[in-house]
């Protein structure tokens, strides 16, 4: 479905991604794990066209997208839940959700998706007209995911949804990710630091170190891989 081939991305003079190749099949949950600063977020930003790669190719369903503008990429159905949630703080919950559906024009569809999202996260329903900035961390994360869902994505990119959240909430969120994948068949590309959780959830995993992919395998295999443990705990 999505194919990154040997992409290289720079920030100014600094090369952040070095020949990264990733394949994601339709309906899969794929996770990208790695330490801070390994280049995981950059990978997502490259896919979304915010920091387009200087070399290499990104193809979505067979057509190349790495030269497109971010809004065109979103239009294709690739949506991101960025790191740190990035809720619009001065907009209400409903408005934030509407922004997620920015490129859609079917009023009825948006309405029913709103209900769907509120079903998924009842707490957001209670907070409807509260400003995004006043929500708690967990609620913001739920809102961020919901906002992305409002675009009816074919491919959902999640950047560290567990960041700074309490374990109970993390668990809740991961379950919902699973549910989204199962029920609507949305392909999910999950970037995580929380390797254990992520690998348990995913079908396949990639391990990233210093801008390179160092390991690719089934998630269950990676979960048992000593290299992964080592990379994380320096054992």
């Amino acid at each position, binding site marked *: 479905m999505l194919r990154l081939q040997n992409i290289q991305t*720079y920030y100014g*003079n600094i090369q952040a991604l070095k020949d990264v190749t990733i394949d994601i099949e339709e309906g899969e949950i794929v996770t990208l794990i790695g330490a801070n600063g390994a280049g995981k977020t950059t990978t997502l930003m490259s896919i979304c066209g915010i920091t387009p790669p*200087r070399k290499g190719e990104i193809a979505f369903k067979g057509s190349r997208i790495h030269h497109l503008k971010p809004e065109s990429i979103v239009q294709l159905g690739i949506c991101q839940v960025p790191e740190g949630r990035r809720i619009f703080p001065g907009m209400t919950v409903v408005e934030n959700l509407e922004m997620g559906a920015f490129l859609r024009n079917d009023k009825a569809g948006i309405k029913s998706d709103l209900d769907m999202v509120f079903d998924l996260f009842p707490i957001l329903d209670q907070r409807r007209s509260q400003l995004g900035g006043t929500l708690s961390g967990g609620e913001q994360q739920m809102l961020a995911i919901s906002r992305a869902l409002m675009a009816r994505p074919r491919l959902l990119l999640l950047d560290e949804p567990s960041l700074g959240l309490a374990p109970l909430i993390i668990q809740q969120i991961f379950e919902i990710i699973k549910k989204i994948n199962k029920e609507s068949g949305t392909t999910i590309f999950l970037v995580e630091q929380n390797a254990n959780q992520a690998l348990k959830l995913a079908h396949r995993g990639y391990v990233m170190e210093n801008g390179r992919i160092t390991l690719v395998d089934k998630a269950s295999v990676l979960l048992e891989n000593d290299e992964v443990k080592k990379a994380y705990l320096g054992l």
Partner: protein
Amino acid sequence: MKNIKQSLAVSLWFIFLTFPLMVVKVNTSDQLVQWRWMNILWIGLATFVLSFVWRYALARKEARQMAAQSGQDEQDKPSRIQALLEDQSLRYKAMIALLIFALAFPWVFDTYQSTIMISALIYVVLGLGLNITVGLAGLLDLGYVAFFAVGAYSYALLNHHFGLGFWTILPVGGILSCLFGVILGFPILRLRGDYLAIVTLGFGMIIKVVLENWSDFSFGPSGIANIDKPGLFGLKMDIAASTTYIYYIMIGLVVLTIIVTARLKNSRIGRAWIALREDEIACVAMGIDMARTKLSAYALGAFWAGMVGVMFAAKTTFINPASFTFMESAIILSIVVLGGMGSILGVILGAMILILLPEYLRAFSEYRMIIFGAAMVVMMIFRPQGIISNVRQKYEFKGLKEKSENV
């Protein structure tokens, strides 16, 4: 083909845009409408051609940036002038030639040329002063002319009331203006950049209003006349002699400013200013006292404006508030930015160009300001670093030398 279409569209758009203002001229009292259809043609043609140039220039700029990013460092490659500047031996030769030229100037040219040159030199000092505040320390000041006014009025008033002479007031004017800078700067320097800009702009305007209204103090809008010219041991001089004399004082002042600003720039304090411009948080984390450093930059910038304000009053022998408008501040700021922020040579060149060009292009005087405005925009788009971008000093240290000698 695509280009032609694009340019055609641009040209049509501008014809539409300029239609009412360029084509129609109404005389309501005589009930006449003047249709200047020829203007459409000119606008159309001009924008058609310009859009080509514009696109080409933008594309070139982008290509350069891309090249720079992929590590080829094209952008940092100094321009031809800069390469020349860095050639040490040539630099000294050029400096000596320039100095001889400057010293010989009043003997070679007539008095008028000298007066024009004095005006330009006044702006050189103003530019260098503002360069400290804006170019080095990064504090945007849109009311710099206020300090210029403080200097000019200190001399005019002290001379008028107490008969104090030019040489006594020259430093006093600078110091007064410096104090003024500190008093104003103290409450406002914690403001963020753009807020600082509007507040300084406000101060510039307040000064003018006060000078206009407080007649008992400043003699109001009619100004102060018959200010003494600088004296030389009580010698009586005719116009030509005193102009030459003022010219030399000005040259001295410029040289002093250049030396002082150059030394400051490459000193502990100058480095702190530049660091402050680049990153305030990193700066305080390195133990630099932000408030003090900012204030010193602000006050020192004001100091030069005050000194040269005294000079200005002595040269014109008459001042009134009309000389201290926002436009002056804008021109001084343009000198700094067009010349190249932080670069001393750039600022000097900027002042010379902006002040001398209009003098010699009197024929274009109607179009002067519009060209000036357009040049500012074009310059910012295609060469935001100014005519001469700031070159950082290269330091010598024993370690590296020894190493290279050993090799």
